[in-house]
């Protein structure tokens, strides 16, 4: 066990697009034999909920490709129109499905199956009045020291 490589990830973001990098890297690392831990903090905690409601927003994201080249001519303020987020989220999910990209739920299941440890930041759970029973089974709770206990001798450490 001790000669296994280790990957430590801090996941801070709670949008549909940013839920992916930690899960893709963690699941792949596990498949390559890494012992892997993801420390979810702040908005990243959204990714631990049993019932995921992750969205992607075009607002303030000039790098996001939009249909009909809208990212080139559509006014930035227009991306704040009510319903825009829901439409973009639906389109993104459909596109991912069409391209054979796993859903966040599926990737997360694959991580859990391959024994990726998921730690929820206790401080931010309390800060946001989140209910631990809303989280998937197997989530551990801890603070910064818990993170360093694992990350201290990790081979790779990522902040996402």
């Amino acid at each position, binding site marked *: 066990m001790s000669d296994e490589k280790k990957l430590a990830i801090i996941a801070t973001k709670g949008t549909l697009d940013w839920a992916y990098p930690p899960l*893709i890297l963690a*699941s*792949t690392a596990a*498949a*390559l*034999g890494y012992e892997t831990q993801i420390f979810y903090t702040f908005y990243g905690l959204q990714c631990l909920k049993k019932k995921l409601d992750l969205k992607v927003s075009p607002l303030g994201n000039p790098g996001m490709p939009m249909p009909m080249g809208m990212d080139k001519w559509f006014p930035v303020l227009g991306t704040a129109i009510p319903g825009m987020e829901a439409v973009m989220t639906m389109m993104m999910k459909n596109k991912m499905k069409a*391209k*054979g*990209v*796993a859903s966040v739920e599926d990737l997360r299941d*694959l991580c859990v199956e*391959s024994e990726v440890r998921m730690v929820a930041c206790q401080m931010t759970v309390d800060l946001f009045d989140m209910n631990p029973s809303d989280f998937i089974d197997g989530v551990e709770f801890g603070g910064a020291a818990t993170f360093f206990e694992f990350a201290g001798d990790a081979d790779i450490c990522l902040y996402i």
Partner: protein
Amino acid sequence: MANFDQELDASGLNCPLPILRAKKTLGGMESGQVLRVIATDPGSVKDFDAFAKQTGNELMESGEEGGKFVFLIKKA
């Protein structure tokens, strides 16, 4: 094409699913057995090479067949 013991069709799946499925399938196989993987993700060519190098499973063949990528992996 050499013989194989099991086949995994990962057509249509994108990164990292072909690798994850392959890993899972290999997990149920015996050492020395050969897994044939079919994929359509162009990124899988480099990824299976990297997967083999890091896991010690041997990538016996990596090629293209009828517009799809085909890999033969021998379980370590």
